[in-house]
């Protein structure tokens, strides 16, 4: 195998340096000790959650109009006499309502800029009057560039509407958690389900906490957006756990690695994937946020994008730094895994003493990793490999996924 792969000649072959952080990240060689330093992450994330809970408890949220009730009137900031200014809008709304509105502001930018007027809830008749008065004063332009009363939008909500939506959302949250626990328990195993759920609660808590801390407005869209984060947060955790499950198959019979090390390798191997999936998932959300918050300034696009963005970031952090380390700790409560870790340690000491493989290079470790994985897979599914020599082990590698790759749901314990 001295001949280098003809495919890679363009990019320079030969001894490749270990590479910087980026290279290690890209190739996923298990160089980041995430599981080993888990105490650090627990403390950091624990502090974050504490701050969030404290903020929710003491500072509370900044509820949108849907929670307190009221009428919101909005219109394009382009009037027949040119740009409508803040002052003009305030004056016009005072005249129309007979008293100052609770808030008048210009939001968004450029052609999408709008005037937003909030008041207490108006009766339908009163609303028609107010809109007419506002139109006569400000003459907002419609889509065709002509002033028209139809350019004025309004929305009136009773104070109970936001509560109603939130109540249903919380019911949905409960149902979802139950279903997902069942799913995870069957698909993975008990401790994985527990770890994934803890990560999930972390994501929801941190997202909600950041909303409270920064004082972003909470609308019903935010509440529902929060729920869909759950799906994404689990998505990420599922991807990592899938790899952990694969790496640790039959680990109890082997002394090459401890559970913690295998899990760490899995995190590393799926690190780039986690980052990639998160970045890709975040990109459209950023587009949404840019348009929703930057151009429009208000509304459902901004609310959904913001909560999704925050939640996705929380989701990736927790799936890497919380879910897997937690899983390792939970697993280590089982004496079988502790015994195995002890065996690994003994074996290494013996090796150390005999001087063999004292220094393990990155490459070696990797080669070993690949090989032991093959061995693991081989151990996991003997039938497909019977009668084949080392040749096929070298080339074919692990048995063709059909038997070993299936989610049998069996716990190998």
């Amino acid at each position, binding site marked *: *195998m001295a*001949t280098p*792969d003809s*495919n*890679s000649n*363009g990019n320079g072959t030969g001894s*490749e340096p270990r590479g910087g952080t980026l290279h290690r990240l890209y190739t996923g060689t298990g160089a980041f000790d995430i599981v080993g330093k888990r105490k650090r992450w627990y403390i950091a994330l624990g502090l974050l959650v504490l701050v969030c809970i404290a903020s929710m408890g003491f500072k509370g949220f900044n509820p949108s109009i849907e929670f*307190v009730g*009221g009428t919101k009137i909005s219109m394009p900031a382009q009037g027949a006499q040119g740009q409508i200014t803040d002052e003009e809008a305030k004056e016009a709304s005072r005249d129309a309502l007979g008293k100052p509105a609770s808030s008048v502001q210009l939001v968004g930018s450029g052609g*999408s800029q709008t005037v937003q007027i909030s008041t*207490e809830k108006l009766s339908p008749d009163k609303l*028609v009057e107010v809109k007419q008065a506002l139109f006569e004063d400000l003459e907002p332009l*419609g889509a065709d560039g002509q002033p028209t009363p*139809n*350019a004025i*939008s*309004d*929305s009136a*909500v*009773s*104070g*109970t509407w936001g*509560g109603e939506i939130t109540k249903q*959302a919380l019911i949905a949250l409960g149902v979802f958690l139950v279903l997902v626990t069942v*799913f995870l328990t069957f698909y993975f195993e008990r401790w994985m389900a527990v770890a994934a759920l803890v990560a999930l609660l972390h994501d929801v808590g941190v997202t909600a906490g950041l909303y409270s801390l920064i004082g972003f407005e909470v609308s*019903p869209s935010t509440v*529902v957006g929060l*729920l*869909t984060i759950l*799906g994404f947060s*689990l998505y990420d955790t599922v991807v990592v756990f899938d790899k952990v499950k694969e790496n640790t198959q039959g680990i109890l019979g*082997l002394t*090459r690695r401890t559970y913690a090390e295998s899990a760490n390798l899995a995190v590393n191997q799926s690190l*780039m994937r986690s980052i990639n999936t998160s970045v*890709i*998932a975040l*990109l*459209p*959300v*950023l*587009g*949404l946020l840019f*348009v929703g918050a930057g151009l*429009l300034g208000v509304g459902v*696009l901004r609310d*959904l*994008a913001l909560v999704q963005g925050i939640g996705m970031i929380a989701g990736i952090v927790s799936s890497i730094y919380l879910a897997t380390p937690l899983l390792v700790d939970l697993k280590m409560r089982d004496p079988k895994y502790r015994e195995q870790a002890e065996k690994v340690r003994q074996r290494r000491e013996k090796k150390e003493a005999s001087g063999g493989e004292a220094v393990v290079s990155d*490459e070696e470790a*990797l080669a070993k990793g690949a*090989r032991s994985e093959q*061995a693991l897979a*081989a151990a996991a599914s003997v039938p497909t490999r019977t009668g084949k020599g*080392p040749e096929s082990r*070298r080339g*074919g*590698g692990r048995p*063709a*996924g*059909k038997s070993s790759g299936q*989610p049998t749901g069996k716990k190998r314990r």
Partner: protein
Amino acid sequence: MRSRPVGAAVSVPDFVPDPHEETDAVAPPAGQIRPGRYLAIFALIIVGIYSLVFFTGNQKPTPELGIDLQGGTRVTLTARTPNGQPPSQESLKQARQIIEQRVNGLGVSGSEVTTSGRNLVITVPGKQGEQAKQLGQTAELNFRKVVQAIPAGAASGRGPAGTTPQQAQQPPGDQPSQEEAIAQAKQLRQSTDQKKLVQAVQQLDCSAPDPLRGNADPKKPLVTCNQDGTQKFVLGPVFLPGDKIDDATVKSPTQKAPQWGVNLSFKGEGKKTWADFTSQNVGKQAAFVLDTQVVSAPKVNTPQLNGTAQITGQFNQQSATQLANTLKYGSLPLAFDQSAAETVSPTLGIASMEAALLAGGIGLALVAVYSLFYYRMLGLLTILSLGLSGLVVYGVLVLFGRWIGFTLDLPGMAGFIIAIGITADSFIVFFERLKDEIREGRTFRSAVPRSWARAKRTILSADAVSFLAAAVLYVLAVGQVKGFAFTLGMSTVLDLIVVFLVTHPLVVLASRSKFLSKPSVTGLGAVQRMGDRARAARKRKTDASSTTPKEA
């Protein structure tokens, strides 16, 4: 699929190819797929969807748009029950039908009434929606005998003594106390105890919203105000319920009676009841009570034996017509509160639509650039798959609009945009798995089927979780965000179709092409070099000792 596997033998001399790969011209065994077949199935699906789009229904290839995208009015009415329990499905359905009739009475095409939880949602597209905000009244018309009528001036207004419980907790936003307020008001204002009724008259504030509206007990007396709040009434129990009304017509002003009003005629028993009442109570007042408010309380001058009655009051042509219509279509079996009412101007609708499209475009472009940069050729496949996915989504959207009345609204568009990322994620799970396999020393070509077998599971389980979240939300959530859950869930399912039928077959095809599997094209150079070293290391090991490298 037609390319012979030249690449395998040339590129990796020491690699022992899977025997299957040599024979892929014949029936491919498990682990190998025929990409062409999958792509053909997908093409068939596309053709199927779009022939349905273009040759059935109204044949217009546009999805139904929600009112927040095309402009219009949406009113959400929440059923208000005396005990706070959810209303029965039956009464909700009945209410929906009645409100539908009222909406149709407005004469705006494309109007719609849907139920969602304990809510009714009225949507009226276009500009004539303002009137829809008035449609939610219960319109329960009852006839009660007037026991006492008092001008409201003296004890009304916000006199210091006149603070009633419901006044103390003014609106808005006391949901839990709503039932209490109703119960309290019932106890006081519908008491059979004369003393309490007197007390109720003193306490009643005609300017405050009435918690009893639409919830009064017909069998008991009632203390209430008239519609303009100028008089208070002590009324007897209902002697004639509104469902005995046969027809209601508008009475135009005449010389003799220069007022707008509504003519009523009763049916069956109602005729007799009305005749009996008017004969026995000549010279007394009968109150027409609409939703617990007295509309008019005429004095009975002569017995009305022909079974007709006339309501007059503070009417103009519009309100008289409206009342006549509501009475004709019947009263709602439930009382409703207007939870939310919004009118979106067409201008804002267009602006929102453009904004959402822009956001989608930006999102798509960012994803495209990132995946091209990171995955090169595979990135191209991602973009192609996303494009095809978009094609399917659009077609399905049009069809759903036709079949189940699905309307695409702003949150729905947000759902699609966010789903771009989730769809692309499936590809990445696959590609990263591919990298894992190559890193372990496989060629691109042999890594594809193996990585797919693994990635498939991950994609399926991850999508299952996403779908679960969306489905739960769709079923349980109320309000506009249902559209968000729907599109998110739908995209998840369509993502599976695309990744199974398009992305994977395309990657298989690419892996069989010599040019496309070059590391400079795939962007997999770094992991491939690692794979080489991994193989080299293994080879050294096995050469040194033919003993099994398996440990433990």
